């Protein structure tokens, strides 16, 4: 609750471990802001639809409830939630350390490339070896790609905002080069890589649904990152660096190392998300394998107040909105990009409400 919004610069000190009931009540209180923010964003979205001749109430009936038709559609939402939770939870760690990693999209792509390389080679491995190997390759590649920006920041003070965004474009161009060139499946009409070997595929949870175990991995990792941030000394150090690097330096913490760790954790999570997209969903590498999950992850983390545990919920919410926007496009021809507008307004509302709460607290 103390760090609900990093956007508000106030003197908040990281807290030591606290009893569970306090954590629970804090969760309840801190849930008010994001819920209000989402409602405002949906209202704005409805207004936008109405102003442009669409049916405004569709935003509730179709976008929210329309995507919960049956088990299969819930499975599709969870499938979309997987990369969002992974990236969102990873970015929580970076943002807590005041590292503005805007490059999750690129890290996702590099993770997908590495996963494809490992998944199309090494024939003959058992699924118990090959599938985890693919995930590991994705995570490592994502971490390395983010590590470039981290290194440039600690070594040359190059703004990570700019470098991670540039690395996004470079990763996208690299992917386009690989699937049209060296990694192209020559027999296919469209640029795409060869199909991953079956043992490399991420196992499905139910055989007739696309949902794979990635969602479980995402939830477990989000919980792990929450424990890491709140309960480990390294997590404490990351948060101190994020709040006040000078104080951290005086306290004997190595700022550069913590920056690198925060960067690489968020990169690994995005890279893993990329690996799951290839190994769990498409089974091939394509030029546009992500519909912007890397950018959406930023909104997921901010809505979660940079708390990895809350990122599970906000990731699920954004996945619902994304699924809903697809339904809305099919049923009412509403352009699917509406979801970007809603994301933007969610972030702005979170910021505004956090400020409002501060003002109310001062008044009270």
């Amino acid at each position, binding site marked *: 609750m103390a760090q609900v919004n990093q956007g508000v610069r106030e003197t908040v000190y990281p807290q030591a471990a606290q009893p569970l009931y306090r954590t629970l009540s804090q969760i309840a209180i801190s849930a008010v802001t994001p819920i209000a923010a989402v409602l405002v964003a949906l209202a704005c979205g409805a207004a936008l639809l109405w102003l442009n001749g669409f049916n405004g109430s569709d935003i509730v009936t179709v976008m929210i409830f329309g995507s919960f038709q049956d088990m299969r559609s819930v499975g599709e939402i969870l499938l979309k939630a997987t990369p969002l939770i992974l990236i969102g939870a990873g970015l929580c760690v970076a943002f807590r350390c005041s590292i503005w990693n805007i490059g999750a999209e690129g890290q996702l792509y590099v993770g997908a490339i590495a996963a494809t390389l490992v998944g199309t080679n090494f024939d003959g491995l058992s699924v118990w070896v090959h599938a985890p190997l693919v995930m590991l390759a994705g995570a490592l590649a994502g971490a390395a790609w983010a590590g470039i920006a981290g290194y440039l920041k600690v070594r040359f*003070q190059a703004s990570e905002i*700019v470098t991670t965004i540039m690395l996004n474009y470079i990763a996208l161009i690299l992917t386009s080069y690989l699937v049209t060139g060296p990694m192209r499946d020559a027999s296919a009409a469209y640029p795409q890589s060869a199909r991953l070997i079956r043992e490399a595929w991420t196992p499905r949870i139910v055989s007739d649904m696309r949902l794979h175990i990635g969602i479980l991995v995402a939830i477990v990792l989000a919980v792990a990152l929450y424990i890491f941030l709140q309960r480990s000394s390294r997590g404490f150090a990351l948060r101190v660096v994020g709040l006040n690097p000078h104080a951290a330096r005086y306290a004997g913490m190595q700022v550069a190392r913590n920056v690198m760790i925060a960067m690489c954790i968020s990169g690994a999570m995005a890279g893993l998300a990329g690996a799951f997209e290839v190994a769990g969903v498409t089974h091939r590498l394509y030029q546009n394998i992500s519909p912007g999950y890397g950018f959406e992850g930023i909104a997921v983390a901010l809505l979660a107040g940079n708390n990895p545990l809350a990122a599970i919920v906000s990731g699920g919410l954004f996945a619902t909105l994304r699924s809903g926007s697809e339904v809305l496009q099919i049923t009412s021809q509403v352009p699917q990009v509406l979801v970007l507008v809603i994301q933007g307004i969610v972030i702005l509302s979170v*910021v505004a409400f956090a400020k409002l709460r501060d003002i109310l607290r001062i008044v009270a």
Partner: protein
Amino acid sequence: MDDMMFLTFLATLVGAAWRLATPLIFASIGEVFSERAGVLNIGLEGTMLVGAFCGFAAAFATGSVPLGLLAGIAGGMLFGLVFAVFTITIKADQIVVGAALNLLGMGLTAFLFRTYYVSTGKGIEIAQPVLIPFLSDIPFLGEAFFRQNLIVYSTVLVAVLASLVLFRTSFGLTLRAVGEHPKAVDVAGRNVAAYRYGAVMVGTGLAGLGGAFLTLGHSNQFVEGITSGRGFIVLAVVVFARWSPIGAFFVSLLFGLFYALQLMLQAQASIIVPYQVLQALPYIMTIITLVVLRGKGAAPSKLGQPYEMR
């Protein structure tokens, strides 16, 4: 004869570089104002998109390029007003708000474009080159410098004017003080927030103009994400230019050269490197720029920090 061909190539290259640099010149000079006042606007990508869309929509409706440009500026400033309210009045984190505005700009422009224009498939009349008498007939130099449209020529004027305002007027002095030592400005009885609002409006107005150039002076169509990262490259340009408008002009030209080189080399079939390497050139150069120019000696000391009166 080979030399002649090379010179022709060079002249075309420089001419194209200036054209391709134009959106960067406007937006980076604008961002210099904003950052000099202590406001880091990473929402420029979204702002430029809004400018590009508003410019396109206005020109589509009226058939007039000047009205389109005005609409681009107005759209940029309207978007900038949102940024200013959130970062200056509400004092929210500038990076968070900037990221939100990028999403909003991308989403809104794509939403409206798909709703109203995508099926029409029609383009708009764009600004035509104005040949400067005599000068445009000079071999090579004429092709490089004197056969541009008026928007491109105006970049020189904007750069000089911006430099004069920033360094030779008391408004400019106060603006820079707001970014370096807002408390001093406050104590001197000037309104810090008002100056920051002004700086952000100038910045986003110019970013809107830069975006509008993309649809009104370069392509004749709006395309989703037409800015393709220029709003972010601008941030690096400003660092490279050491927060100077004239510097921003020349650094933008350099980036324009990368864009032009990429396009012209792509057209050459004999090239050995894959075209994607050339495509990545502006982005790679941006990173290299930041690394080579390390150290932030010239950065306004209060860049990115909201001002709290105490």
